[in-house]
């Protein structure tokens, strides 16, 4: 440091401190001036505004995104609804106001008072909801007498409207009031108590797109709580619109065909994985959830033995029965246990150890090769293939075909099904695998469980030459202006463990199921379109206890589940379908016709276009 510099000494600090004190005093002068301005100059005006807490916030709900099908048919939208609330502090006197209001909208005063009673503890400037959705007459009555009803507030709220009642209800899901656990979870940061959020299906999974962003207004109100001036407005941002891969024409058809039965129909485009149909029967009314359901309604929904709240397409697990023979056939061919020339004699039963395993046809199928075995669903043939493969090789192929694990569809609560193996059984029951159990598994019985969606994905892969696509329900997300936010792309998630040759053999077998004179699904044959498929009849546990009952006398809940998986056209397929009818008894009679009608609806283009036009013109 240069000589001319002094080290800082006490005097130097004192000099600087004096300046600091001046600065501080200056800063406090600014504060005091502002205080003077607010409390003395503006005081009168600000006191007036404080008197009634005149400046208030009112929130405006965002309108939730709409839901369309793949062709732009509107499935879900919003309609304006008027909610009636009261602000206790403004409604003086409360009793008198409520009495007048009760008369106007024909609601007993006691009921309105009860609503208030629940909320007595709340801040009295917070609106308390008296009645939702008062309807046009109520609206007119209240609007006219507005000045007689201090503290009564009418809010327009967009209300969810499920246009196609009961249609695709499980897929689309529903809205319901957010509960305290969800509020605390932190997953809904912009929600407050009383908000409606998606609770199930697409409404839940795509909540973030559909929701939009709440807006609000800063308003000045008069003594009666009525808005005299809007100070500032923040517009609500509407939610984004969702286009599903669903084809409503087919969906409607599937639901009509399932009417009265319990079961599921799923269909997809084998080349993209787009889910065209996802129907689960019986269905439920989504609007009832929005309007608020009585306890009794809810009870009857969840106690219904046909489980209307379950999406049977992804949550229902059933033995795949003979549809599993597709897997057994692939495994047998790939492992060299059989080839297209192998023939086995079916006398109608197969003896293994000291037990007899029956073929479904008592007289037997005679000499059977793989094509005939698939076409006529010969159990004995597949018993032997299964036995030669052993359970673990069979399980390997089943898993590689996508069974035993969720397909990954973008919906909650998808079931995984079960692909049994020796290790699995040991783990689950502690008992070693029995050789005979392999035979049951080979024909899709035993511990085997699959969902309709899993069988559909498998069938689609078989149809398209072996590529397993992820099943998609979302086609695109668009803004209200139509700009694309997200466009789904097909996603390959695996390949069938089968060579071209093997696939060709199994495909031919499935073609014969529908098209050969003795095929089990001749009923599914339609002129002009080649359909390939596989039937299945899943035994229901408990049936063996009553061996003497004939098929006709069997109580419904012991009847077998009917399966049919199919794709069409057999070459260059455009659609794959899986049908499951609970207790439908025979795949051929209960399930195959449903699949046939859906394929017919989709592939007979003239009729399809006519229906589509009719549907669009309704909008």
């Amino acid at each position, binding site marked *: 440091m240069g000589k001319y510099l002094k080290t800082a000494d006490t005097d130097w600090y004192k000099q600087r*401190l004096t300046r600091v004190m001046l600065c501080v005093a200056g800063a406090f002068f600014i504060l005091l001036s502002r205080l003077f301005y607010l409390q003395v100059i503006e005081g009168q005006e600000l006191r007036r505004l404080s008197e009634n807490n005149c400046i208030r916030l009112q929130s405006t709900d965002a309108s939730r995104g709409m839901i369309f099908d793949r062709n732009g048919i509107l499935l879900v939208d919003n309609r304006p609804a008027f909610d009636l609330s009261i602000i206790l502090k403004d409604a003086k006197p409360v009793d008198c106001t409520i009495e007048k209001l009760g008369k106007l909208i024909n609601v007993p005063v006691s009921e309105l008072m009860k609503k208030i009673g629940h909320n007595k503890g709340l801040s009295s400037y917070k609106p308390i909801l008296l009645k939702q959705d008062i309807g046009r007459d109520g609206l007119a009555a209240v609007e006219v007498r507005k000045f007689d009803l201090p503290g009564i507030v009418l809010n327009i709220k967009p209300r969810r409207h499920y246009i196609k009642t009961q249609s695709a209800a499980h897929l689309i899901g529903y809205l319901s009031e957010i509960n305290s656990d969800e509020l605390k979870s932190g997953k809904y940061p912009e929600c407050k108590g009383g908000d409606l959020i998606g609770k199930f299906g697409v409404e839940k999974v795509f909540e973030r797109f559909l929701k939009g962003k709440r807006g609000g207004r800063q308003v000045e109100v008069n003594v009666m709580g009525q808005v005299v001036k809007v100070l500032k407005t923040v517009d609500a941002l509407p939610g984004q619109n969702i286009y599903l891969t669903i084809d409503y024409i087919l969906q409607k058809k599937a639901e009509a065909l399932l009417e009265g039965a319990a079961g599921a129909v799923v269909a997809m485009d084998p080349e993209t994985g787009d889910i065209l149909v996802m129907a689960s029967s019986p269905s439920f009314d989504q609007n009832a959830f929005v309007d608020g359901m009585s306890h009794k309604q809810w009870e009857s929904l969840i106690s219904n033995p046909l489980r209307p709240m379950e999406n049977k397409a992804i949550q229902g697990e059933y033995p795949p029965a003979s549809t599993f023979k597709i897997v057994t056939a692939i495994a047998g061919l790939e492992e060299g246990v059989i080839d297209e020339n192998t023939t086995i004699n079916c006398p109608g039963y197969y003896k293994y150890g000291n037990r007899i395993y029956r073929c479904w046809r008592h007289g037997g199928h005679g000499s059977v090769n793989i094509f005939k075995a698939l076409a006529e669903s010969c159990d004995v043939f597949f018993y032997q293939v299964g036995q030669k493969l052993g359970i673990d090789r069979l399980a390997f192929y089943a898993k590689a075909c996508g069974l035993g694990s969720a397909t990954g569809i973008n919906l909650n609560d998808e079931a995984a099904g079960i692909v049994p193996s020796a290790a699995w059984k040991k783990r689950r029951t502690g008992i070693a695998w029995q050789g005979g159990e392999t035979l049951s598994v080979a024909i899709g019985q035993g511990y085997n469980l699959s969902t309709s969606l899993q069988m559909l994905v498998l069938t689609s892969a078989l149809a398209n030459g072996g590529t397993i696509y992820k099943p998609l329900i979302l086609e695109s997300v668009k803004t209200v202006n139509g700009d694309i936010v997200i466009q789904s792309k097909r996603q390959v998630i695996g390949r069938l463990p089968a060579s071209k040759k093997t696939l060709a053999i199994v495909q031919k077998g499935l073609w014969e199921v529908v098209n050969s004179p003795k095929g089990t699904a001749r009923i599914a044959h339609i002129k002009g379109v080649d359909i390939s498929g596989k039937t299945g009849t899943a035994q229901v546990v408990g049936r063996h206890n009553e061996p003497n009952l004939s098929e006709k006398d069997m109580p419904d809940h012991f009847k077998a589940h009917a399966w049919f998986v199919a794709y069409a056209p057999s070459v260059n397929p455009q659609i794959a379908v899986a049908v499951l009818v609970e207790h439908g008894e025979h795949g051929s009679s209960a399930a195959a016709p449903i699949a046939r009608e859906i394929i017919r609806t989709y592939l007979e283009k003239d009729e399809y276009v006519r229906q589509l036009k009719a549907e669009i013109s309704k909008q």
Partner: protein
Amino acid sequence: MFDRRFVKYFDWGFLGLTFLIGLIGLVTLYSAVASATPTPQKTLYFKQIIWYCIGMTGMVLSFLINYKSLYRWSPAIYAVCIVLLISVLMMGKYVGGARRWLILGPFSIQPSELVKIAVIISLARYYSKFSDTRGFSLRELFTPLILTAIPFILIVKQPDLGTAMVVVLIAGFMTVFVKIERRSLLYIITACAITGPLVWFLLKDYQKKRILTFINPDRDPLGAGYHIIQSKIAIGSGMIFGKGFLKGTQNALSFLPEQHTDFIFSVLAEEWGFVGSVVILFLFLMFIIWGLNIAYRCRDPFGTILAVGITAMMFWQVFINVGMAMGLMPIVGVTLPFISYGGSSIVSIMICVGLLMSISMRRFLIE
């Protein structure tokens, strides 16, 4: 051992001033929490009294310590505080999307409050060591920059923008006090003038929006903008003599956000009016001038700069908090010393009071 000068030079006036402001703080807090709807939070009031007791212990301890030993201990104190800040980021409690609290048994502490003291002590050590009348050059300011930047970044990460800003402002106040070399000051100003707009262009849209809202709360009429309006109404409606104790309506109806912490001045101004507000502001001004006077009379550079730093902290918190409540300043979470609810804030302020008294009393002890 015991020096009779301890009694003679004890700063009774400063202690009295502290107690007076503390008492007003407790009365105001009572009003803020007692009438809050829907649920009065009286437990907070009793908690605050307990914090005051703990703070008083801290004050006595920091008073008994010869402040000069802090010179030696300052690196250790700084290191401990930084470790605390890092552990907050790693295992702090989430409250409203931010991690600011460390749970230590029955207490939750906010290390960012203590960090302010650590930064003040460390800067006082550095500046007292190298200070000369020419001022500090850019190169010499590198160490203080690092000492400030580390806690600043850690606190911004929590995120607690208000406290982070206060740390920078305190450091700035102290640096300007010890003087920056004229040429270096020019460099700093030009550098800021050039990089400022550059940074602005690099920011993403949502970041720009956040900054604009921060500067001008009116851009967010449903959030910050509304709070400011309510706060201004509360203050203004107090008029000259106020509405009276426990009579504030804005407060009682939860129109004010954070009425017992960040917006407590509005409660006070509404109930006690212009007269009451001037009194409390005057007491704060007196406290700050008193602190600066302690620095003035201290004959040891370390003590002087330490006292200036502590006073700077008081000044900024009062200025920002009151300015914010009156709509003069962006909305940031800065507590009003002695008055806002908050254990760590009270304890750290009481420690500061103890330090100031320690400096004041030892002004004649020359080693």
